[in-house]
C-alpha cells in the first residue's frame, strides 16, 4: 500500500494553507526505520522529538506486565506527538512499535530554529495539535466502547509483544 508522504499529509489532511512552509517543514524530519517491538519513547525520559508514522503501527502502554494497559494506538499517517515535547515533561508511558515502522523524526532544535525564522509556521504546529486532539478523542472513545480491547493482554500475546520496562 502506498502511503502519503509527510509533505502531502500536511497539505492534504491537515490543510495548513502553507504549502511552501509545509515543504520546508517536512524536510526537517529524518527518516528512521524501527523493527517490531522497539521502544520509540521511554517512560520517565524526556521526549526530544516528534514523529510522523508513515508506515507501521505503534502503541503506548502504561506500565509493565501484568498490569500494563493500552493507552493509545497509532496507525500509518499519524503524528506521535508527546505532550512532554512541548511542556518539557518526561514521558508518563512508553511507546513502542507493533510492527516494522518507517518514522520521520523531528528534534526540537531544528523545529525551534524553523519557527524562529518563520513564525507563521506555528500554524502547522497548531494543525498537528488539533489533529492530535481529534485522534486522542477518537482513541479514548474506541478503547472505552470496544470491549475486545479490554482483553489487551490477549491482543499483545497474539502480536507476540514482549514489552517490559
Amino acid at each position, binding site marked *: 500500500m502506498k502511503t502519503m508522504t509527510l*509533505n502531502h499529509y500536511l497539505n492534504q489532511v491537515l490543510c495548513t494553507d*502553507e*504549502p*511552501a*512552509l509545509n*515543504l*520546508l517543514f*517536512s*524536510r526537517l524530519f529524518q527518516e528512521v526505520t524501527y523493527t517490531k517491538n522497539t521502544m520509540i519513547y521511554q517512560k520517565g525520559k524526556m521526549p526530544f522529538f516528534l514523529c510522523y508514522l508513515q508506515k507501521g503501527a505503534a502503541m503506548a502502554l502504561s506500565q509493565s506486565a501484568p498490569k500494563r494497559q493500552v493507552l493509545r494506538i497509532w496507525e500509518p499517517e499519524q503524528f506521535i506527538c508527546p505532550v512532554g515535547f512541548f511542556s518539557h515533561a518526561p514521558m508518563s508511558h512508553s511507546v513502542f512499535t507493533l510492527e516494522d515502522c518507517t518514522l520521520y523524526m523531528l528534534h526540537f532544535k531544528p523545529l525551534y530554529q524553523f519557527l524562529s525564522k518563520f513564525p507563521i509556521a506555528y500554524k502547522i504546529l497548531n494543525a498537528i495539535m488539533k489533529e492530535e486532539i481529534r485522534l486522542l478523542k477518537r482513541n479514548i472513545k474506541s478503547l472505552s466502547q470496544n470491549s475486545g480491547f479490554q482483553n489487551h493482554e490477549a491482543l499483545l500475546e497474539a502480536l507476540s509483544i514482549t514489552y517490559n520496562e
Partner: protein
Amino acid sequence: MKKLQFNMQGIRVLQRELFSLNDAELAVEILLLRSNLFAWIEKHFELNDKDREAFHLLSPASREFLAVWLSNRFALRKSIHFTVIRS
C-alpha cells in the same frame, strides 16, 4: 541552473526547471525565495538596472506578499502567469 532573461519566456523556462526538481532540491529554492526574494530573482535572471530599481520600489509588504505567493505556487508545482512590463 543558468541565468535566464527576465521575460515571459525566461519565467516559463525557470518554471519547467523548478518543477523537474525533487522535493529536496525544490525546498532549497523555496527557502531562498521565501527568505530573500530579490536574491532568488537575481540568482535566476539577468537583470538590468531598471529591473533592480523597479524591484526596490516595491514596498516591503508587497515583496513579502510576492514571496509567499510565489513560494506557495511553486511548492504545489503550480505555474504562475507573470507579465514583465518595461516602460
